């Protein structure tokens, strides 16, 4: 079954005059139709680079290395030029970022931006705007993401709204555009727990209603747990474990995944100290061996021999020699 988004061997480098950073290496992931895939990682994992790459929003000093492919509905996005990229919004990919102003135009009223989203959808699906006129459609869309006082909000500008309201406006635009694929990069990190819960529930609702696929990038395991069907854990720019979310969380294979889960406090200090992963991520570890080796409690000699390849275990893929000694070329 081919997925709506297929990423094969994606590698991204950032270059400055003094250094080259391998932000992503040989990442291959598939998102199926109507599925929510979460990309979980910390700083240096490459998760944001992944979101930017798929959204075609990489900064100028980023290079996608040869051999990488990003296919949306069969079309290779890496081969598109600028005017064709502009079509992407029309082909049904929508992005939400943590930084609201990457998605919302600070100079346009909310109303206009939602109408724009509606127009994009109309053009794509060749349906005409509802008879009752754009404003009432905007109002009903805003209401469906539980924005109170939609009529007043419509007339405001993004900087006049709170972070939570802006996030919901973007969700409203996602609803309006009815994209087939939503890329969300840490959309709830800056929000309160209670607002975050609302956004998570809304996303799930939208997915149910319109079979939208979502790539949800986050550092928060709990958020990933409550929303995803499948989960991919990234470390040092590579996929370390990917599989059904339930399985990855209840039976984590990769030592990093296990360490992450154990880092979340689930007891009182009187019951002992937390099982922390030792050390910290360092770009020095990103090289020709397992990037996690320096911090891994199960490290062996063979970990430093070469980069382990992904091994299939049930419905999960793990990149760890403890599950099979095969290596990347």
């Amino acid at each position, binding site marked *: 079954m081919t997925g709506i988004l297929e990423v094969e061997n994606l590698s991204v480098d950032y270059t400055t005059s003094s250094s080259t950073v391998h932000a992503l290496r040989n990442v291959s992931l598939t998102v199926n139709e109507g599925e929510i895939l979460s990309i979980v990682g910390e700083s240096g994992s490459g998760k944001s680079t992944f979101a930017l790459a798929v959204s075609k929003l990489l900064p100028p000093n980023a290079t996608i290395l040869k051999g990488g492919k990003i296919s949306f509905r069969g079309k290779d996005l890496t081969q598109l030029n600028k005017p064709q990229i502009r079509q992407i919004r029309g082909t049904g990919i929508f992005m939400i970022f943590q930084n609201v102003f990457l998605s919302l135009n600070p100079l346009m009223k909310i109303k206009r931006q939602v109408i724009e989203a509606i127009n994009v959808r109309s053009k794509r699906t060749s349906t005409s705007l509802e008879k009752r006129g754009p404003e009432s459609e905007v109002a009903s869309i805003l209401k469906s993401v539980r924005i109170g006082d939609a009529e007043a909000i419509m007339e405001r500008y993004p900087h006049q709204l709170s972070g939570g309201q802006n996030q919901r406006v973007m969700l409203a635009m996602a609803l309006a555009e009815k994209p087939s694929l939503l890329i969300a990069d840490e959309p709830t990190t800056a929000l309160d727990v209670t607002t975050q819960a609302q956004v998570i529930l809304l996303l799930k609702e939208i997915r149910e209603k319109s079979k939208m696929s979502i790539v949800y990038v986050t550092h928060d395991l709990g958020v990933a747990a*409550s929303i995803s069907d499948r989960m991919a854990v990234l470390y040092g720019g590579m996929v370390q474990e990917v599989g059904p979310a339930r399985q990855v969380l209840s039976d984590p294979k990769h030592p990093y995944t296990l360490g992450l889960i*154990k880092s979340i406090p*689930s007891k009182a*200090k009187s019951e002992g100290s937390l099982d922390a992963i030792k050390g910290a991520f360092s770009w020095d570890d990103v090289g020709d061996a397992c990037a996690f080796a320096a911090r891994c409690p199960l490290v062996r000699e063979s970990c430093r021999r070469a980069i382990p390849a992904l091994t299939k275990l049930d419905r999960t893929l793990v990149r760890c020699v403890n599950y099979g000694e095969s290596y990347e070329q």
Partner: protein
Amino acid sequence: MSSSNQASLQIEHAVKKFSIGEQGIFTRLRREKKRYMNAVDDVTLGVAKGETLVVLGESGCGKTTLGRLIVGLERLNSGRISYEGSELKYVRDRGAVRGRLQMVFQDPSSSLNPYLNVSTCIAEPISKMGFRKSEVTAKVTEALKLVGMESLFMARRTSDLSGGQKQRTAIARALISDPTVIVLDEPTSSIDVSIQAQILNLLVELQNLRGLTYVLITHDPNVARFMADKIAVMYLGKIVEYGMPGDVLKHPKHPYTQGLLASAPKLDGSSPEAIRGEPPSLINLPKGCRFEPRCPHAMPKCREREPALISKHSELVACYLFEEG
């Protein structure tokens, strides 16, 4: 609440107001009435020596302002904060006691001057205390050791450090003046989860080693569960629930606490439950209970008068449901 003679830190009816809107010369001339919001609205709390009080709440609840009041970065409008019996004033007027209460801020990238080196940052609290250079260096080295960093970091620029290293530096800075009370404002929210556990372990270790008293501000119930000896839940400037972690986290009594804990995402994959309605603003407060508009158990009397903190079974809850139950 801890009784006064046990309490190392005592907060009594603390109120802090902030004015809303610009106050230029012209609005002052027109004598427009100033509008205020009470970020901290009549808070009374005590913290016993060596204890960790966790202040749990979301943004806008006043927890950060409360923390700043304790260390003196804000002035009280009314009420009293005292440390070991004597009243605490604004930070500039504290004299020697200033070094006794220190703060660790949320975002280490913003709490360390990126152009200074680690040693200068850590030494700042004692820079005005008349120590000789050699003494300062010795203290900085000791502080670095306490937070698990080698002295080779002393000459590094803070902007070259990782998030975890920065936070350790900030903790070292808070320790160097030998404080007894440390206010920690979301100390792990801006760093990676895997480092967060290290920092929390470090904080507990330091507390046991030096008998430190912590006031830990957070929105994360997991952090609260691990660190707290007592928890105070804040909403819109007031304490709505106070008690031991086992009670507050496992059997929350106030509807807001229940809603807050239910909306926190959990690892078992269950969907979070959202509290209905918008997060409130401090500007137009309702007459009665502040949570009433969003409360699933609201009763008519909730709209009339604000419930006071009711004490029962060593817990305090500001809710009429509690007094009946």
